Structures are given as C-alpha cells and as structure tokens.
C-alpha cells in the first residue's frame, strides 16, 4: 500500500476542516478527489505535504511509515511530491539551481551521488521536453514573473525531475487554458507507471478527460462521501455536488457549474 489514511482530522484556529477522512491508494493507482470549494481538498494536500499550520490527528501511513511524524523535507526526499495550487515566487534564485538542489536532496536520500551542474543540465533539458518548456525558463528565478500556465508547467517539470513515488496535484488545472491543460496532462501521463501513485485534486471534471483516474472520490465537509470509478466524475459534472452537500451538512448549496 502506498498511502493509507485513517480517521484524519485537521483543524486550523479551532475550525475543523478535515473530519475523519479515510483513503487508500495503492502503488500505480490514479485517484481523483473532487468536491466543492471549502470541502477541505487543498487542506488534505497541505496536510499530506506537512504544512505545520494545521492541528492534525489520525493516522497516515506512507509505505507503511508514519507520515505525520516526518518533516516536510523528509516527506519530500522519501518521495512525496505536491504540485502546488499557487507556486510561490523566489526572486533571485535560479530555477535550474533550485531544481538541482532539490534533486540532490532526493538523490542523497536514495544513496545516489550528487549530480553536478553539467549532468543535471542534460537531465533537465530532457525533462523539459515533456512539458514543452523553453530553455529560457531555466535561467529565470523560481516562478518569478511566470504566467499561471508557466508556474503549473514548472511544477510538473519538477515532478518529472524529482520522480516521486506519490504525487499530489492540487488544482493543477486551475488557471490553465485548454492548450496548457493538454500539455500539463501529457506531461503527467508520461510520468505514470506501475510504481508511481497519483492523487489529483480538482474542482472540474475537465482535467480527468486527460488524466484518467482509476478511482474518483467526492469530498464534502472534510470527508469522503462517495467513491466510484471515472464515470462518477462525469455524473458530478452534470448534477453538481448538491446531493452530497444536503446529505452531510445542509449548508449552502452551490451547483457545480457556478463555482470557480
């Protein structure tokens, strides 16, 4: 089992966001989590990556190890990767340098030698083709002055270079036009294999036309309320999350089509 989540609770400032979430992901599986705004999707991604702003209880086993006890950097070098919804700018730090530093941290953990600048450049150039990225990206500062689409492609490039075991894509499709979406999806698909698991968090079914999930989960109010196969995503697109929301909280009902 790649990831086993049991009874996961997370709150921030006393406000509960995740409320007893369970999820199993096996190696090589693609899972999609869908849900309305505020359902806790992004919180789940952040908690799995180790953000310390949340109070967390419950159990998360990653390859049988206690994930919650690990620091964010430890999770990263163990192979957990989060493609951020809003990648941050780091002015003055070159993209290439940043990525090589990150890769060498992972390589160290895997008992491999550090890559020098030249060897790394060869690798980076090859992986950049996956997301059709121009070489000029490399000399720019991390995400600084990038367009929305460029930051997302940069996230997938990082994934391609770091070769994680478990990749979490947090709303990677948001802010992408259809062309960019296809490029990103092609990049991700090229990275899928039997060992690598993928957790795709999205608001829209659109992305799942290109990255086809094995399992789809609906998340509402901090819990997974229904799981199914890829067809469920289409159903959701048609009917919205309304039924589920009424089921669980009786809170505000927003048809999916109107959400942004």
């Amino acid at each position, binding site marked *: 089992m790649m990831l086993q989540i049991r009874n996961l609770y997370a709150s921030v400032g006393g406000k509960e966001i995740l409320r007893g979430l369970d999820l199993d992901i096996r190696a090589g599986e693609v899972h999609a989590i869908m849900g309305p705004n505020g359902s806790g999707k992004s919180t789940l991604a952040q908690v799995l990556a*180790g953000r*310390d702003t949340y109070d967390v209880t419950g159990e998360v086993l990653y390859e049988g190890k206690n994930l919650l006890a690990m620091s964010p950097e430890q999770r990263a070098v163990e192979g957990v990767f*989060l493609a951020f919804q809003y990648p941050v700018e*780091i002015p003055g*730090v070159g993209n290439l340098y940043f990525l090589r530093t990150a890769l060498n*941290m*992972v390589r160290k953990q895997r008992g491999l030698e550090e890559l020098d600048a030249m060897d790394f450049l060869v690798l980076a150039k090859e992986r950049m083709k996956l997301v059709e990225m121009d070489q000029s990206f490399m000399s720019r*500062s991390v995400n600084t002055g990038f367009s929305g689409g460029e930051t997302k492609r940069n996230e997938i490039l*990082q994934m391609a270079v770091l070769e994680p075991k478990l990749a979490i894509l947090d709303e990677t499709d948001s802010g992408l036009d259809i062309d960019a979406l296809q490029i990103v999806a092609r990049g991700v698909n090229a990275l899928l294999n039997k060992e690598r698991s993928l957790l795709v968090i999205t608001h829209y079914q659109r992305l799942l036309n290109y990255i086809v999930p094995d399992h789809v989960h609906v998340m509402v109010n901090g819990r997974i309320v229904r799981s199914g196969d890829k067809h469920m995503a289409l159903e959701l697109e048609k009917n919205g999350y309304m039924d589920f929301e009424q089921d669980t909280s009786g809170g505000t009902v927003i048809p999916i089509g109107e959400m942004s």
Partner: protein
Amino acid sequence: MSVVQKEIHELTSREYQYGFVTDFETDVAPRGLNEDVIRLISSKKNEPQWLLDWRLRAYRYLLTMEEPNWQNAHYGPIDYQDIIYYAAPKPKTAGPKSLDEVDPEIVAMFNKLGISLGEQERLSGIAVDAIVDSVSVGTTFKKKLAEVGVIFCSFSEAVQDYPNLVKKYLGSVVPYTDNYFATLNSAVFTDGSFCFIPKGVRCPMELSTYFRINQADTGQFERTLIIAEDHAYVSYLEGCTAPMRDKNQLHAAVVELVALSSAQIKYSTVQNWYPGDKDGKGGIYNFVTKRGICAGANSKISWTQVETGSAITWKYPSVILKGDNSVGEFYSVALTNNRQQADTGTKMIHIGKNTRSTILSKGISAGHGQNTYRGLVKITKSATGARNHTQCDSLLIGSQCGAHTFPYIQVWNPTAQVEHEASTSKIGEDQLFYCRQRGIPVEDAASMIVNGFCREVFKELPMEFAVEAQKLLSVSLEGCIG
C-alpha cells in the same frame, strides 16, 4: 512557536567564528586622547612635520565639535579617554620589514582567517596588505605591481616613500573638518593602505586590505587612499574581523578615492567585524567615512559592500560626481541579526553634466536587528542631464526586527531624472514551505531565499568575494529561521 519559528531562531543564533585572540607582543600607547598621544603616534611613524601639524589641526578642531547623535542607532556614551589609540605588534627583528620577517604568530593568525601572506602559496593572484590593530604587517606582490608602476603599500610607508602624493591627496576628498569621526581619525590614524595607479594602467590583480583588530581596548583608525590617474583601473577589496570581547571597540576609518579622467575604481567590502553576542554585549562600533570623487570626465567609482558584522554599522560610502559623464554606483547588502544595528546608505552628489548614479540597497533584518537605509541624492544646479536610480529593498525575518528607509532627494536642476523604488517583504512561510516540500531543509531554504534576495548585489562582487559573502550571510543567519 511553530517549527519554522523555532528553526529561524536556531538559525539566527549561530556563533561568530573569527572571535579568537592571538597572543603576540604588542607595543601600545597609553590610554586616552591628547596632543602627547598624537605626537607619540606621529613620532613612532617617523612622520614629517607637515603631517603632525595636520593631525594636530584635526585634533584641535575635534575639541570644538560635538559627537553626532542623529543616526537611527542607540548605544551608550563612548569614553574616548579609555581607548588605546596605538597598538602595534612588536617586530621580532629590527630593521626593514620583509614578508619573511613577519612574526610567525601573525602569519598563523592570518592563515586561520583564511588569508595567506606567503606569496607563493597564493594562487588567487590577489595582493594583500595585512593590517593588525594600528599597523600594516606586510604587503604582498609589491614587486610585481611595481613593474607596471602600481604603488600598493601601507599608508606609513607611503608617507615615507611618496610624501608628495600623500600630501597632495590626503584629506582632498574627506577633509579633516568633515565629521566627528573623520576628524578623530585624522588626528589619530595609525595606518592603512595606499594605492596609486598611474595613467593608463589597468591594475593586473585585485588589491586587498585585510583589517584585524586583535588588542583589547584599542580603536582601529585606519586611513586608505586610492588614486587612479587618467584611464587607470583598479579593483580593491577590503575584509575585516575582530576577536570576541565584552567591551565595544571603536573602528573609525576614513577611505578616500580619487578617480581622474576616464579612470575606474571598484571598491568592495565584506565587513565581518565581531557583532557582539546575542544579547548585544560587546562588538565593534563601525563608524566609517568612505567617499570617492570622480574628479575627471568619464570616470567611474563603484562601491559594493556586504555588511554582516559590527554591533553598530554607521557608514555612507559616497561619490562626488564632479567630472562630466561620470558614474557613481553603490551596491549594498546589510544584514542585522540579534541586537545589531545598521544605519547605512550612500550619498551621490551630482555636479558634472550627464552624471549618472545607481543605488541598490538590500537590507536584511533578523532577530532584534534594526536596519536603516539612509541615502542622499543631490543634483546640483550645474548637473544638467543628471540621472539617478535608487532601489531599496528590505527583507524581514521574524517579527522582532525592523527595517527603516530615509531617502533624501535634493534636486536643483530641472533636467534631472531621479527615481526611487522601495520594497519591504517578509521571508514567507509559503516560500520556506515550498522549498521544504522539494526536500530542501529549512536552513538551506532560508539561506537560499536570502541569497536570492541579494543576488543583484553579489554579482557586483569579484568572484571569490561573492562566494565568501554568500557563506558569510548563511553563517550570520544561522539560528534565525523558524
């Protein structure tokens, strides 16, 4: 305290690594400041009468002055009578000084600081003038430089060997009446570096002075004078360290640069004086006057400074742009951690036509550090077509520190273009988390973010210095992230 806060805290509390004291015999003047001490310094250095007279004029002028207190820094009164104004390592042998005769203890001390005084061992091709307390203990590569006509020696030697040059330029940029600390320096300065690049010569190697305060209770008052004649070029580096002591020590230096027509002087400083302990006890008061004059047309003076040390840093490396089309530049990184205070910036005085200046200041505050940028851009009536661009960026680490900006802009010519940009940002949890999620530990991440912030300034430094500056910045920040 969140994990990140805790780590910031640890990162900012790492210790100063040059704080050792070396034991060698020292010849010291009695404590206190009076005409006798000045006469003693002058006679120790076998100075000509005119120089003694100049010192005494400065001293008498000092008596009429009041210590300034307008800077954005706070410290107790300095007892000028409790300072030792002259301390010199005692030479083991009498007679002319050659590098081979430098006390092995001193050579070992410089080796420990990473500065080699053996010419053969130096692969980097940088000529070094090493100054301990009040005197220069040796200058490397003098012969090689002399072959192209470059004079590089201690100030004391210059007074003996090139009195006319010294007399012509000493005080020509920073007169002895300039300000309290410059006046004090003029009265009691003990040594420093002298550098003269004749017409048309491009100095074949980087020149550098390394300052070391070793003796307790001494002040270091050095004087550096660099002259680049027409079409000459020189790149000059300055580094400094001091032992860890409980008492504050005063460093009041004066640096004067003179660039004649089409000459270029690039002056880089990596200042790492002992900053005091984490509670603000001890440390160097670095009150320095640095000024250059672009005396000739098309000349250029560029100051680059990385200020990481000192309890208090108070300095404004400035450029008087007198020659038409001359260029002044100021690139600065100032870091204050723990209880350090820095009030630093520059003055660009535009006099010549079409003169241009660039100011790029990066202030980093961590711990309880207070960082102030203070800069004057003055466009005088005659400076038709003058241009200035100023950018001041501040980065805050943690919530106990402060960043302040005091720009002064005086424009007396309507054709001038003056731009001022400023920004303040906080090293973000988001940035740190992003790096950590990519496997980069929090200390490395913080250091990466800070170095990125300073990149535009570091790229102005000579290669070797840039690497040192980056390392220094990481060390200075240790214990501050979290």
